[in-house]
């Protein structure tokens, strides 16, 4: 109890002066928001037969990634692919090159964004979600600058919008891949320093079919 504490003001003052605050230090709130909206990668549990209804996220620096079977995202403890890894989209904007891959796994549909931009740093992010059809869309959000949000959606979704922390909204069309009948995909590059707080999915008639608040705590 605070009331019980007779704080030694002299000691507090001395320590405060001996270890001064670095008043020029400043954090990056956008990074915090991005990290808060990312979802932890599910851990595998032996004997667990129930699929985890949670998206998995992995964001790593490419130099640290070990390619297994030719893909950086396979290794011990990672989802096991139940189908081929397919490139569903790629883009080059100047020196900014990114590729979106997808594959079916024992953790549901997995989407993987690999960006090879040399500056400020290459990034790679992966998310797997066994429950896309129930929720309407999955998402992975990267904290790198510029940030990306991407994922898989139900086949009736034609457009995904992302409401951002700066008040703007980004809208992207979904991407079809011949290899996946049950899913479409999306990827949106966001302005630096922002993150998506709400994702909305719309069908062809403009009807909203799914919504996810990225900052809500998942069960």
């Amino acid at each position, binding site marked *: 109890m605070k009331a019980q504490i007779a704080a030694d003001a002299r000691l*507090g003052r001395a320590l405060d002066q001996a270890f001064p605050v670095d008043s020029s230090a400043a954090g990056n709130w956008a990074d915090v928001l991005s990290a808060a909206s990312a979802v932890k990668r599910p851990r595998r549990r032996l004997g667990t037969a129930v699929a985890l209804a949670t998206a998995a996220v992995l964001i790593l620096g490419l130099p640290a990634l070990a390619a297994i079977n030719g893909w950086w995202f396979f290794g011990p403890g990672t989802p096991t692919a139940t189908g081929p890894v397919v490139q569903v989209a790629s883009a080059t904007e100047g020196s900014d090159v990114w590729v979106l891959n997808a594959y079916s796994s024992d953790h549901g549909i997995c989407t993987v964004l690999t960006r090879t931009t040399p500056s400020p740093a290459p990034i790679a992010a992966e998310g797997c979600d066994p429950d896309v059809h129930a929720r309407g869309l999955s998402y992975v959000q990267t904290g790198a600058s510029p940030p990306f949000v991407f994922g898989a959606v139900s086949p009736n979704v034609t457009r995904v919008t992302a409401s951002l922390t700066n008040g703007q909204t980004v809208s992207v069309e979904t991407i079809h891949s011949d290899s996946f009948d049950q899913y479409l995909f999306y990827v949106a590059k966001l302005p630096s320093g922002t993150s998506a707080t709400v994702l909305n999915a719309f069908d062809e008639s403009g009807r909203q079919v799914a919504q996810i608040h990225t900052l809500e705590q998942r069960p």
Partner: protein
Amino acid sequence: MMPRGASLTELQALYEREYPRLLRLAWSITADRAAAQDAVQDAFVSLIRHRKSYRGEGNIFSWAGRSVAREALRQRSRASKELGGEMPEPADPSSQTDLEQLSAIRNETRRLPERQRHVLFLRYFGDLAYDEIADILGVSVGTVSSTIHDAQAALKPRLEEVHTR
């Protein structure tokens, strides 16, 4: 009593206003600036995700301080560095205290056993109560009380010097 919860706006304001103090708290425990920055970030990620559980009791800085302290101790457990080599040096002492004295206090504090240092920093940099410190460190309130007493006793000669100048 139902938790009143904390809004994102409140958390952002807290983060931006108190970042330097929370970084110092984390840094004093991790002894590494980058680890301290990670601890503050991870703490706020957790606070955002659990913001609805904020009860609105006590000051919000302490609420954040508890989370930062836990993350800093987690970071600390992954490393084994000596305390505070990189922490900012005293630069603007008050009229009562000169740099030499502050350096002495700093060095004396560094020589304290780790638990004493952590308890001191949690108490004075985190503005945490004894029971909160006990909860974070997994010890009894009595242990916190006696640890602070021991630390104060160890630093007392230096503090006397500061006080009497």
